[in-house]
């Protein structure tokens, strides 16, 4: 089994006219790679009618509905994260309830509010109640403010994770941009923070540093926007680790942190 914990899909109300092709390409590449389940989110309208990282409630609901529809259309291949904007607390909590009840298996927080902000606490309390993980977008080692997002880094996610030890957090895309070398020590001592290996970055030494710093039991395989890099990392890991360790990264660790029954064989 191979679980991609960081995938995205598009829908008809995004800026991409080729959205169907991109969705189809992800699934086709997944077949070739051997991905059993894509755990995916849709960030509102991806900028069409509200900013990708500051999505409106209406866009979030439309995107989450599209994600639920994909999950139902591909029950053996796709699972969903419910994406929310923590600036709208009541709406976010209601949306999480609605979408988890509809079969989604996790919560996606992007960059609408800094990870260590108290506004994220009610969402994390709900994650604990519902026993679902939180995938948090991270800019590895933030050196300032970046246009278009209120990005968080690993140190800020670590503060949130320390306040909610019962919740599993996924530090998003270690290869997704920013200085990953600074991220790993920030979460070393927090066993409830997992490292999602996705992202376009395929730096030599990155995977070795992940293994050395947080251990195999805290690594999750994923692709995000570039599936070839995910496959390459898997191939590279195969010459670094034993087959049982590879199985943990391919699916075992994911099965441990997502709700029981989220995946076909658990």
């Amino acid at each position, binding site marked *: 089994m191979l679980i991609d914990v960081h995938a995205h899909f598009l829908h008809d109300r995004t800026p991409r006219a080729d959205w169907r092709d*991109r969705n189809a390409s992800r699934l086709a590449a997944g077949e070739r790679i051997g991905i059993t389940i894509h755990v995916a989110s849709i960030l509102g309208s991806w900028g069409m009618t509200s900013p990708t990282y500051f999505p409106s409630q209406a866009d979030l609901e439309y995107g989450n509905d599209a994600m639920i529809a994909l999950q139902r259309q591909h029950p053996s291949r796709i699972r969903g994260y419910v994406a929310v904007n923590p600036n709208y607390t009541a709406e976010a909590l209601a949306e999480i309830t609605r979408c988890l009840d509809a079969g989604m298996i996790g919560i996606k927080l992007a960059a609408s509010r800094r990870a260590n902000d108290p506004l994220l606490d009610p969402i994390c309390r709900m994650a604990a109640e519902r026993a679902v993980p939180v995938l948090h977008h991270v800019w590895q*080692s933030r050196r300032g403010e970046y246009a278009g997002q209120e990005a968080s880094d690993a140190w800020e996610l670590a503060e949130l994770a320390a306040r909610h030890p019962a919740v599993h957090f996924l530090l998003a895309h270690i290869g997704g941009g920013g*200085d990953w070398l600074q991220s790993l020590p920030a979460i070393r001592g927090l066993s409830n923070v997992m490292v999602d290996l996705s992202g376009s970055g395929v*730096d030599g030494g990155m995977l070795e540093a992940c293994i050395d710093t947080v251990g195999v039991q805290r690594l999750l395989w994923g692709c995000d926007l570039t599936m070839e890099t995910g496959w390459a990392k898997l191939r590279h890991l195969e010459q670094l680790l034993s087959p049982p360790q590879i199985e943990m990264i391919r699916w075992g660790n994911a099965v441990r942190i997502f709700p029981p029954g989220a995946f076909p064989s658990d």
Partner: protein
Amino acid sequence: MRIDTNAFLGSYPFRRVPGTSPEAVLAAMDRLGIDQAWVTHLPGVFWRDPAAGNKWLLDTCDRYPRLRPVPAIHPGVAGWRESVDSARAAGAPAVRCDPTFYGIEPSGQAVRALGAACAVSGLPLVLAVRLEDGRQRHPNDRAAELPASAVRTLVRSDPRLKLLITHADRPFIEEVHFGSTPEEAARLWWDICWIWGPPEDHLQILLRTIGHERFVLGTGQPLRIPENAGAKLDLLDMSAEARTAIDSGNAEALQAVR
């Protein structure tokens, strides 16, 4: 036959990178079925005179024939023409220049002079757009990325000059390719190491719009894990002829054009 046209030997100054020795690069090549790698002395890229690393590079490649030297040339340093001659005499498949790391104008007079010398000697000139993702570079690693305009200027500077551009992404490649005449574009080769695969399918789109003849296998190892280049090719639906061309045929053609 597989030729990795984009590989390095030696340590990187801005972070620890495993597998930088010739033996480690050869082991990675064995693992991935790569028969030959075109290699540059990585520390030299950051030296005042990168050619100071070329002797070690040539000696190393003499010891390991599957590694072929791509000596670095700083055209602002006295004696650079002799370095080009030495590269040719040593059978180098190409020479490289990293002008932004040397602190010189990427399409200035010195680099154009190097281009002319390469054109005369028949040696392709390798230029990298970048070595690392700009979002993660060391705070003191401030060299600019190679601008697309510089490549357009260089390819126009001499009708015999062949350029191999590494670490370029789709927008960069499209800007240069479609900003060049067909004759100019036919003297440009691109390595695939920084081009995205599915679901954005940038490589597949480029192979359709530009043609597989212009692309060569390049990994960027050991700064990048070498599995990436092969994985993106394995995700493509392509003919055996096109795959062979990218794996090795285009690189062989590039160095054969003298």
